[in-house]
């Protein structure tokens, strides 16, 4: 049997089908994420949310917090070309965005801190005192 030079590998086709199925049921289920993508770090006392917003000016980023909801808003500074200029490639995203995140607990809005450095937005949200679990002592009968 003569195999054609272009490598047809049935095993990899089956593997690809498996991968596609896996990605359907794994965490990132193929749904398009809202912009900007965020990472969330947490411990018992608070949450840290980070987002990459390269090229956005600090004044154009809006961070607001209510209860257990965080809202990020901003962007929209589209680059426009002068007369006679020509695009070679256009890959960067620069649309305006609004994104709301549900946090794992209520946060103390007065103690939230946000910083923007090298295009990375970092928001520290301490847990609200009322929302902290209360230790209950178990008395001997």
């Amino acid at each position: 049997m003569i195999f054609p030079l272009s490598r047809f590998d049935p095993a990899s086709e089956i593997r690809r089908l498996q991968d596609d199925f896996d990605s359907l049921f794994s965490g990132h289920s193929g749904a398009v994420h809202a912009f900007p993508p965020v990472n969330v770090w947490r411990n018992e006392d608070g949450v840290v949310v980070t987002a990459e917003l390269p090229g956005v000016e600090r004044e154009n980023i809006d961070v607001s917090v209510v209860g257990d909801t965080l809202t990020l808003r901003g962007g929209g500074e589209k680059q426009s070309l002068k007369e006679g200029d020509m695009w070679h490639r256009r890959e960067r995203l620069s649309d305006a965005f609004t994104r709301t995140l549900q946090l794992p607990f209520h946060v103390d809005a007065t103690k939230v801190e946000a910083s923007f450095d090298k295009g990375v937005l970092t928001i520290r949200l301490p847990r609200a005192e009322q929302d902290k679990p209360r230790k209950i002592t178990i008395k001997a009968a």
Partner: protein
Amino acid sequence: MATETRAMDKREAQQPQGVERTMTRKVFMPRADIYESGESLVILLDMPGVDEKSVDVTLEKDILTITGTVQPHIPEGHTLAYSEYEIGDYRRAFTISDVDRENITAVVKNGVLRLTLPKSAQARTRKIEVKTQ
């Protein structure tokens, strides 16, 4: 990876066959906007986490290579609860020609590198008008 990457995912950089980096950190291709004006070629690269000290731009023959390193910032005492993007270094290379090498400028601001490559004198005057019969 067999699955299609979504428009917003970072794309991993290609390494030449059989060549590896010494570090195990991932390398991504930064998104680029490139436009040409009468006098120069401008390249804008999104590299969040990079500043002027951690970016490297080299031009060898006609290949322009840009690399940026990112210090992973993990908040102390916290664990990752949810992740939508990965953090890694950046690398991308372009072939360019007709550039005035001595006057290339590079500026980094808010994680974006802006490279301005002025066209060389020959490139600017080379335009030959094409007429129809």
